[in-house]
């Protein structure tokens, strides 16, 4: 499939020799999928598989952010609220109807998409800071509403909520019939998330992707070129909300009985932080974001016995470091920095102050994290080193 696609692309004059990189990328992705789908369940325990299911789900949410911010330049600080809405819709639908799971996924995605567009429509005239703030405020309002109506638990009415103790907790969002067990459901989630990523990639490669790129570079120029800015911005909101809604449905079936505690406000901060740290311009960054947000806390707490609160500090420092010296995030910057380091070691280029501090800042982050994990009796050492990372990054500027 990849080869034919590449050949077709090669036929077009404006993209000449793109065969090899595309084939290579497709092979890498296929390889990773094989590992994720077959190697992990065979070798890792139930708790790891559970964690990786969450990684896949939150990577999909982060992919929505890549679309919104990375491609169009619109930031949304309320994606976790959209996720919560998706989970709520899925839970309510599942108790009210008997939809087969794939249909439930699509319907949830569609409803969440409509809600996302409704929220986004009046906000489209705002840009940058103000759009971010309005999404933050909308998320706050959604949280207040959810705190009141809570999640459906099998009751009737619009909110689907019952408070009879005998009835509480008996209904759970069912998983697809042939993916009931944790391993099977994990594979299902990975496949669905991969499909969502594919959907986003298809968008990038076709008209909306080009429209978004134009808007990102310069809105007035795009407007002058005849691009319907409102339509494309709405399309981005729609796509991001759709895949977040699908992620919400997957989350509902993973948890079974969602509640408001699953969507704390601090998660929105963590999501933005990890998405930026991972790399907001490519979908690889979205996967890194999911890993940071879900796998790291599990490792810290359950595997290494480290206080998970340190992760907040790490995320904060990583975010600052990324904003200052590596806007493309880890997926973008790490290879460059390692290449720089390689060249430095080989003494091919002189050591500029910028390069020195840039490398020092990434090293400080990594060394700091390692120190926090290993020096359990004196984590302050690791924390000071981690905090030095953004300081070095700042010194590497201008």
């Amino acid at each position, binding site marked *: 499939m990849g080869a034919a696609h590449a050949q077709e692309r090669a036929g077009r004059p404006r993209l000449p020799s793109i065969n090899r990189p595309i084939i290579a990328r497709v092979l890498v992705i296929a390889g990773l999928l094989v590992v994720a789908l077959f190697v992990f369940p065979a070798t890792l325990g139930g708790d790891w598989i559970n964690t990786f299911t969450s990684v896949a789900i939150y990577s999909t949410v982060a992919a929505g952010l890549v679309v919104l*911010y990375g491609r169009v*330049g619109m*930031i949304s600080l309320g994606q976790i609220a959209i996720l919560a809405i998706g989970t709520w819709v899925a839970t309510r639908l599942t108790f009210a109807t008997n939809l087969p799971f794939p249909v439930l996924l699509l319907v949830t995605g569609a409803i969440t998409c409509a809600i996302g567009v409704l929220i986004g429509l*009046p*906000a489209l*005239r*705002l*840009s*940058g*800071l*103000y759009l*971010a*703030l*309005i999404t*933050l*405020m*909308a998320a*706050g*309002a959604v949280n*207040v*509403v959810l*705190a*009141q109506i809570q999640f459906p638990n099998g009751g009737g009415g619009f909110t689907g909520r019952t408070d009879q103790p005998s009835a509480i907790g008996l209904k759970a969002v069912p998983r697809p019939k042939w993916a009931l067990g944790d391993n099977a459901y994990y594979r299902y989630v990975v496949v669905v998330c991969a499909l969502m990523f594919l959907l986003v990639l298809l968008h990038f490669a076709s008209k909306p992707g080009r429209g978004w790129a134009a808007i*990102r*570079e*310069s*809105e*007035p120029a795009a*407007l002058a070129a005849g691009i319907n800015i409102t339509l494309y911005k709405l399309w981005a909101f729609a796509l991001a909300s759709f895949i977040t809604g699908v992620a919400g449905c997957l989350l509902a079936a993973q948890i079974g009985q969602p509640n408001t505690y699953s969507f704390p*406000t*601090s998660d929105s*901060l*963590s999501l*933005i*932080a990890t998405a*930026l740290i991972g790399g907001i311009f490519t979908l690889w960054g979205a996967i890194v974001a999911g890993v940071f947000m879900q796998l790291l806390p599990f490792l810290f707490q359950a595997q290494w016995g480290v*206080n998970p*609160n*340190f*992760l*907040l*500090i*790490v*995320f*904060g*420092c990583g*975010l*600052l470091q990324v*904003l*200052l010296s590596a*806007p493309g995030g880890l997926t973008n910057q790490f290879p460059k920095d390692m290449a720089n380091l390689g060249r430095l070691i080989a003494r091919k280029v002189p050591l500029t102050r910028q390069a020195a501090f840039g490398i020092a800042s990434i090293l400080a982050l990594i060394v700091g994290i390692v120190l926090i994990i290993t020096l359990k009796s004196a*984590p302050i050492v690791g*924390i000071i080193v981690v*905090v030095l990372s*953004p*300081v070095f*990054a*700042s010194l590497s*500027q*201008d």
Partner: protein
Amino acid sequence: MSSVVAFSVFGVDWEFLKPYIVLGLALGGVYALSGVGIVVLYKATGVLNLAFGAVGAAGALIAYWMVNHTSWPHWLAYTTCVAFGGAVNLLYGVVFGPAFAKRDPLVKMIGTLALALILLGIMAWRAPAGGAFVRVLTLPSSTHYYTVFGARVNLTQILALAFAIALTIVTTLFLRYTALGTAYRAIANDREITATLGVPVRRVEASAWLGSGLVCGAAGLLLADLYTSLDYTALTFLVISSLAAALIGRLESLWLTLFGGLLVGFVQSILTPYGSVTAYRAATPFVLSIIVLLWMGRRRVVVFAPSTR
């Protein structure tokens, strides 16, 4: 005190609502105070400081520790809280401000988000909450009560409101009539040109960070007292409500910010006794700021802004 006869205006029982009006204004004073602090910094540096609440909460925790675990005088603890707010903000502004100076305001704001995360992590690590145990920081002014229209307010609430009003007046005058204030406005207008005019831009910005930080520390102290239990998560995310006040002021007018804070507090409090909406009144700051933001965006303005890379 007030008479027992309730009079109805527009079908509303004002006798019944009077205490909520008073309490709402007292609460709004606190929102207004934080809001003014946020707007001042934004006007001078273009940075919307989302770590406002976290810095204040950290300062309050330090003050709490000093009051309860050392024998030092209490006024030293309160001063330390305020000074801590100034110091942390100043440090952030000096170390990271210049690096962020040329960036989009959105990026600057996310930088402060990072600061908030770091502070949250430190607070959660060093000051975990216990089961039967809660941290209470009570200012000496909280023991003096006054009855206003059927509700009792303490001196701290009155001080918060007075402080908010005084801060607005002083800052407005400062920005308009002093050289430093003019420098702030000039930098907000165009940083590069102001620098070429010989204004020590970095030092001026640092002073803005320091000033805003002192307000932040003071607000943290007042909020910790008014909320009674030092819940640093709540205090950190309180910045969102204060942000609503700043947004109602369109991030530019101090008087509108003051008004916005009072409005948010007033509306939120007034809704308390109405059973059908009372559970949703916590959404007041969000709803009001959304309305204002949408109103601000009603005229389509296409900006030649640098792309957010």
